Structures are given as C-alpha cells and as structure tokens.
C-alpha cells in the first residue's frame, strides 16, 4: 500500500492512489519487492526505475502536510532531467523506504531531500554510463531528458528500456555533480502539492480512514488522575451495549467492539475504580517548581565577563519570561491501526519516525525487529511528537489481546489531556546598555527540563500502564538553543539550569524551545532598546553583523512600512520586530508586526504581519510560504491563547473551550518576503518562522500600549492586569 502515485497533467492536478490489496485484506499493505535494499549508501534504496520509464522515489521522510510530497520529487526530477509527473513517491514504510531519521527539526529537505537529490544525481550518471555503452556513443554526447537518454544527432533510449525493473546497483556518490542552479527547471517552481485536491474533495486517506479487513475498534480508558492504579473494573457496566470486550492489562484498561461508536460509548460507560494519582504540581505551581529545582547547571555561552560588566553598568535591567506547557492540539485526535498476530506486527500510523517506532514496537511486544512493519499514513497535523505513537501502542496492546486488527482513535479529551506536552520554560535575563546605547552586557539563565540522552523513544502511556518495561526519561528536543542575543555583545553568558523532570510528560513541539527563547531574548532586546531610548529596528541593526541577518531584518521592517521611533509610540497601532538565526546556524528570519490593544477588554488585535525569510535554496516557494504562514498563525495562537491547565490530579483543559485555538476573526494579513539564495544549501522552513512571533507581538503591544507582556499566553486578564 501506501503507494501514493501522483500525476500532474496539463495544469490540472490528478491524484491517484494505488491501494494494492492482498486478497485477505483491504489493508493497505504492499509486499516489499524481493531483494529491495534499504541501505542508505545504495542508490536503489531511494529510487527505482520501472519498465514503463516511471521513477519511484522511496523517502524515509514523510509529508506531514508540509509539502515534501512534491518538494522531494522536485529535487529528484531536477537531477533526472524530467518533470515530477514521472515520479511516484513512497514514504515512511519500514519495509520499503530507507531510514532517513525522523521527520523533525526542519530536516525534511535539508537532510532527506538533499540525500535523495544526491541519489538521483548518482542515478543520472549511472544511466548515462549504461547508455553510452549500449549506444556506443561518447558519454559527453548524451543527455538525460524526459525519461530518455538522448544522443546528439538523434539516437535515444528510454530509461525503462535501459534498466526498467532492474536494480542500478551503484553506491550513492556524494560527489555526483548536481545541476547548476542557473539551469534549474523544476527546483524553485511553486508546483502544486499532489494531495491537496483529494484533501479538498474529502477523499484523501488519513490514518483515521484506513480500514483493515476484520478490523475492530478500540478505545482506551485513561485514569482520572495521572499515575493512578486500576483497582477494580465493572464489566457489567457495558453489557447493555453488547459485543464489547473489556481488555485489562494491569492498569491498562480498554474496550474493543465491532463498531467505532460502540467502542466510544463503552469507554465512556465503563465503570472502574482507580487509586489516587501520583500528584501533579498544578499549572499555577509550575514556575515556583522550576525555580526550586534542584537544577544541574551548564554554561552554554561565555564571552567576556558578563557578571563584572553587569555589576559596573549604569543602565542595567532584569526581567523574567515564562512560557507555559502547550498541547500539540492536532485537529484530529491521534489514531492508529495495529495488527499483531502470530509473532508479527503491522502498524498503520502517522508516525514521524516509522523506523524508530519499529524498534519501539519490537521492544514493547518482544518481537524481532524484522517481524515489525510500520507504515506511515497521514495524520491530522504533526508538529512534533503528539499522541501518534501512544495511540499506536494502545492499538498494539489491544490487537495482541484480541488477536485481530484494532483501530484506536483517541477522543478530544484523550488528546488534550494525554498528548505529551511542549515543556514549560522560564528565563531570567539581565542586561545593560552603555553610554553609546549599545548592549554592554547580557546574561540569560533558563530553567528547562533536560532531555534524556540517547532515549530510544519517549515512554508511552499504554505500555507504562500495562507494566511493560520502558527506558525512563524525557523527550523535549533541543530546547536550550537560541538563548543568546544574536547581536554583538562583548560580555555575554548563557546558563541553563537543567531540571531532571517536567510537570507533565514532555515532548518535542515545533521549533522545540526556540520559540520561548526567542520570545525572551527578542523581547529583552526591545527592553534594552527602550532603556537606550532607541528605535527597535536601528538598535538591532547596530548590533547585527551577519549580512543575511541584516537583510531579513530590513526586509521584514519594510513589509509593514516601519516608522523609526523609540517605543512606546504615541498610542493606537503599535509595531514590533524580532529576529532569529535559527539554531544559530540555519534559517534567518525576521518578523515585524502591527498590533493594537483594547485597554478596557484587554483584547489584542494583530493587524498585519510581515516576515522576511532566508532558508537558502528554496525548492518550492509556495510550500515555503505555506510553512511560514502556518508557523506564524500557530505561534500567534500559542502566544495569545494557549496554556495547558492542570490541577493536582490531571489536565483540565481538555476541550477547545478550555484550550482555545486562534480563530478566523483573529487572523491578520500576512506578507512574506522570501530571500532566494538558489546557490546556497537549503536550511529548512518548517519551524524557523515560528520563533520570532511571540517577541514581535509583545514588542508591538509595548509600542502600542506601553505594557510589557512577559508571561504567555497574553490573555485579556493579563493585559488588563498589566495596565494596573
């Protein structure tokens, strides 16, 4: 299965799904071709040429809605001298696609696409060599065009005829020449994504829509308190529904039924008695809990002598910034189907890391890795590790218990209550400006949960409840990056106070850590500019040396017709700007924003947003724009509205009323200026634009109203309180 073929024909977009169905099942599984290699030093792992001259790309990176499904074929097509219509794209199937690592950290193009492009370039060279021998023509007279090797003077040979169905058998050559950007025909074009038409028509197959023959529906009953033990289950409480099987494995409790609605209502009706939980700190207590530690300290940056420079400075300020826990809040709750029978496991999952999850399932179920197959199928928005692996583990436990394929779809309450959360972050900043109005000293201290080194996978809920051994630890992503000012500061220090735990189970959430760090660093930069009575844009440009950084800052400011003045402004509409060099070595991005504040209600209205973005080589500019738009709006939602609420027992913000998301009336106009650097390497576009959003907003609010918001979310209550 999972063999998505797409065809672009004459401007109209045609999407065809080839679901090869084994006789026994509607299951979208396709047997792995015999002898297929997944070794990442082999071109055949990434690419196959059919007898019909069509090319299949096998990608370990998956399309989570970010557009890899067209962008990676564009990269391959460029090197193969064809259009994307010749290319089929198979993704994230452990039996078919090589392990290119998780689809995470903006690496889809930067690593995954680059690797496949190199494989395609190697394939092109191999095809030309083969054709030179077959046609008895000098290699220099041959070119690969539209699926044919053409010789000057007329002779040609189709690639299907040349190698169709057979392996190329060549090693991936890291030095195979890449197409000169001056001659790009496919890279850099805003080609439409092949899946959009079916998504709009309602026929695109999400993991939620997959049907496997004989499949049952399962639901898991979570305890009323985190860490509670199951004392007693009253199976008779669901007898009236009929045909419901209750599955209990220690503290893991689930139901399985033939119909989805029966499983859902049975999970709701099932009466169970639980012990008290292990006790949570509660959302109001997180900040004090983080300060208390005890932490393990690490100095990340030390230049000059920040302590001495701060102590001796005349104009010195300090401020604390807080970023709460956030849910991924994917629009569809997590869902997976598992078929665990006779020592074999097949999982259909929206996993961002099917190969990693294959190992996880093998460990959890005590199966040999080669007997586990994980097949990626689109989920509902993945911005990091949401509940997709948890749901798959739930399905696996239930399937093993009943001996049939089981589909588990979480409820909304499950998702907001139990998805692993973006970790909380607390930052304390100190800084000073000198008499020339420059930043003389800077110190960042951050309190954050520490990710466990070499954690094979995030501990999953179902196996934990079932008493299955897992490597304990925290997963957070690289959340300490970008805590330093991106400006010239002679005396600077960044210290992390690492915490051994987190208030709720954490995981990677889009641009892990960098959104909160950018919020603190770029808000504080504005606070220093205000102390120096300087225009926020001029203040930044005075300290910025990197020409690519300077360019995005200037271009973002121009998008909202930046008026130079110190902040706060005269009232009314305010404007703010923020800049970040993602991870200090990837994408450059600046965001300028206009906002106004209603003093009486406390409502913030964002009027317009301008983003200038330099991610090096742009494969598909429309795809990059969509990622920037999404990063901006999702982060506005997080900054304005979102905080996971929890008491001593459990998460209480479990619907979209208590965990509100940005809505249409809140949506500003967004203008995007893409800096095209087609001769540079690609740097990733899925996360960077999220990182300056909260600071640009806080800075615009300060300019508009003279209030400095340092705690996310910027709720109406907080805004009113800030006015005093």
């Amino acid at each position, binding site marked *: 299965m999972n063999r998505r073929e797409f065809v672009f024909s004459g401007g109209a977009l045609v999407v065809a799904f080839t679901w090869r169905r084994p006789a026994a099942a509607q299951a979208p599984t396709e047997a792995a071709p015999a002898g297929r290699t997944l070794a990442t030093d082999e071109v055949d792992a990434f690419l196959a040429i059919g007898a019909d001259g069509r090319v299949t790309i096998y990608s370990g990176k998956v399309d989570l809605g970010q557009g890899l499904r067209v962008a990676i074929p564009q990269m391959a097509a460029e090197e193969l001298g064809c259009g994307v219509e010749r290319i089929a794209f198979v993704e994230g199937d452990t039996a078919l696609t090589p392990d290119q690592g998780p689809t995470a950290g903006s690496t889809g193009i930067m690593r995954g696409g680059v690797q496949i492009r190199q494989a395609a370039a190697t394939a092109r060279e191999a095809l030309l060599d083969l054709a030179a021998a077959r046609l008895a023509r000098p290699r220099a007279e041959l070119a690969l065009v539209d699926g044919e090797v053409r010789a000057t003077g007329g002779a040609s040979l189709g690639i299907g005829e040349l190698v169709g169905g057979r392996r190329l058998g060549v090693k991936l050559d890291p030095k195979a020449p890449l197409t000169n950007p001056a001659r790009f025909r496919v890279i850099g074009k805003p080609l439409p994504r092949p899946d959009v038409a079916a998504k709009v028509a*309602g026929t695109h197959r*999400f993991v939620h829509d997959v049907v496997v023959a004989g499949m049952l529906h399962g639901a898991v009953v979570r305890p009323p308190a985190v860490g509670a033990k199951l004392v007693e289950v009253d199976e008779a409480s669901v007898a009236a529904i009929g045909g419901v099987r209750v599955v209990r494995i220690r503290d893991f409790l689930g139901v399985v039924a033939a119909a989805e*609605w029966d499983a859902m209502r049975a999970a709701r009706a099932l009466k169970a008695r639980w012990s008290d939980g292990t006790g949570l700190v509660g959302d109001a207590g997180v900040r004090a809990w983080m300060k208390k530690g005890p932490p393990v300290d690490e100095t990340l940056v030390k230049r000059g002598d920040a302590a001495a420079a701060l102590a001796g400075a005349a104009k010195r300020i300090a401020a604390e910034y807080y970023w709460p826990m956030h849910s991924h809040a994917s629009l569809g709750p997590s869902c997976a189907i598992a078929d665990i029978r006779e020592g074999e496991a097949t999982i259909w999952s929206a996993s961002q890391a099917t190969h990693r999850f294959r190992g996880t399932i093998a460990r959890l179920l005590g199966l040999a890795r080669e007997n586990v197959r994980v097949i990626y199928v689109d989920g509902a928005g993945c911005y990091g590790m949401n509940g997709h692996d948890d749901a798959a583990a739930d399905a696996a436990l239930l399937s093993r218990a009943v001996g049939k394929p089981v589909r588990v779809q979480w409820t909304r309450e499950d998702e907001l209550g139990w998805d692993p959360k973006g970790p909380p972050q607390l930052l304390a900043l100190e800084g000073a400006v000198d008499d020339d109005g420059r930043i003389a000293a800077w110190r960042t201290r951050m309190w954050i949960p520490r990710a466990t080194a070499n954690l094979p996978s995030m501990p999953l809920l179902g196996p934990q409840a079932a008493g299955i051994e897992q490597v304990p630890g925290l997963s957070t992503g690289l959340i300490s990056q970008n805590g330093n000012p991106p400006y010239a500061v002679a005396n600077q220090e960044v210290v992390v106070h690492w915490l051994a735990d987190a208030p709720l189970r954490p995981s990677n959430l889009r641009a892990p850590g960098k959104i909160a760090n950018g919020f603190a660093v770029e808000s504080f930069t504005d606070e220093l500019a205000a102390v120096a009575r300087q225009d926020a844009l001029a203040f930044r440009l005075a300290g910025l040396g990197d020409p690519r950084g300077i360019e995005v800052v200037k271009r973002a400011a121009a998008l909202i017709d930046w008026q130079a003045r110190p902040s706060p402004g005269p009232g009314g509409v305010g404007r703010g700007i923020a800049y970040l060099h993602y991870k200090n070595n990837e994408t450059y991005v600046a965001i300028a924003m206009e906002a106004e504040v209603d003093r009486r209600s406390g409502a913030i209205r964002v009027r317009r947003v301008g983003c200038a973005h330099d991610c090096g080589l742009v494969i598909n500019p429309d795809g990059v724009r969509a990622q920037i738009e999404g990063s901006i709006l999702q982060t506005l939602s997080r900054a304005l509205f979102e905080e996971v609420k929890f008491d001593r027992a459990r998460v209480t913000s479990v619907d979209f009323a208590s965990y509100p998301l940005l809505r249409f009336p809140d949506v500003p*106009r967004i203008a995007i200026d893409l800096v095209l650097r087609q001769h540079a390497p690609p740097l990733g576009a899925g996360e960077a634009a999220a990182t300056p959003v909260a600071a640009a907003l806080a800075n615009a609010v300060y300019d508009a109203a003279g209030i400095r918001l340092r705690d996310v979310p910027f709720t109406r209550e907080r805004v009113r309180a800030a006015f005093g």
Partner: protein
Amino acid sequence: MARITLTVNDRERALDVRDPGEPLLFVLRNQLGLTGAKYGCGVGQCGACTVLVDGEAVRSCLVPAGSAAGRAVTTVEHLGTAERPGPLQRAFIEQQAAQCGYCVPGMVMSAAALLRRNPRPTGDEVKRALDGNLCRCGTHQRIIDAVLLAAGTR
C-alpha cells in the same frame, strides 16, 4: 437495532443503527464510507465534521443519525471529486488551501453553506462564517482567499 432512512447526497439510504443516538458523523463514515467528514472533538467545537442538513451547516458529531431522517444531508463528496472538483473546491485547490488537510472538508462545507445564503461575502463575512471551524496548521489566510475566490469577491 433501529432502521432509519437518510437522504445523503441525493440518494436515499436505509440503514440499521444499533443506537438511535449514534451521531450522523459515524454513520456517514463507517456505514456509508463517506469519510470526508472528520471526527475532531465530538462536541461541536472544531467544525471538522461539518455537513449540510437541508442546506445549513451542522456539526454531524452532534446530530443523532435518527434525527436527520427525512432531511437532505450533503457531504463534501457531493461537491465534486479530486479529478472533477466543484467550483468551491477548485478555489481551495487553486489557493493550495490545505496543509495536513484534516479540517478542510469541514471548512469547505461551512463555506458552501455561507455561499448559499450569501453568494458574495466580504472577507469579514467569511471570517465570521468560519469562526466555528478550527485549523491547527495555520492555513486560515489561504482558506479565506479560496472562499473569496470562489465567490468572485477576491
């Protein structure tokens, strides 16, 4: 077991449901194979399950299937196909107004209901009409533009 008769996408369908309270959403998805409408929250807060009932946008996760008997149910599948999309769907495709796409069928149906009662909405009217539809990927601007494009008011 209760027998209900629904009119879905202009076709009359007789169905057996075990629970008359089963929401229309699950009957559409699991019994009729119309999986365009999605489960997002189950309590009418996200709009992913939006379909038309007698031309009005409703949350199919809240409507007991039995109560839709005798009324005309229209799902996103009725507006066109990927190969032959309807005009509103064409506008969404033109704007590439989907990222993960899970919310999109509901967006299309809420927009279809808007255009039925107000064929030439302004941007603000589109925003108000879609206020009950959530998108987590941040595709809002393209969705607004798509609806305005379909209406000819862009």
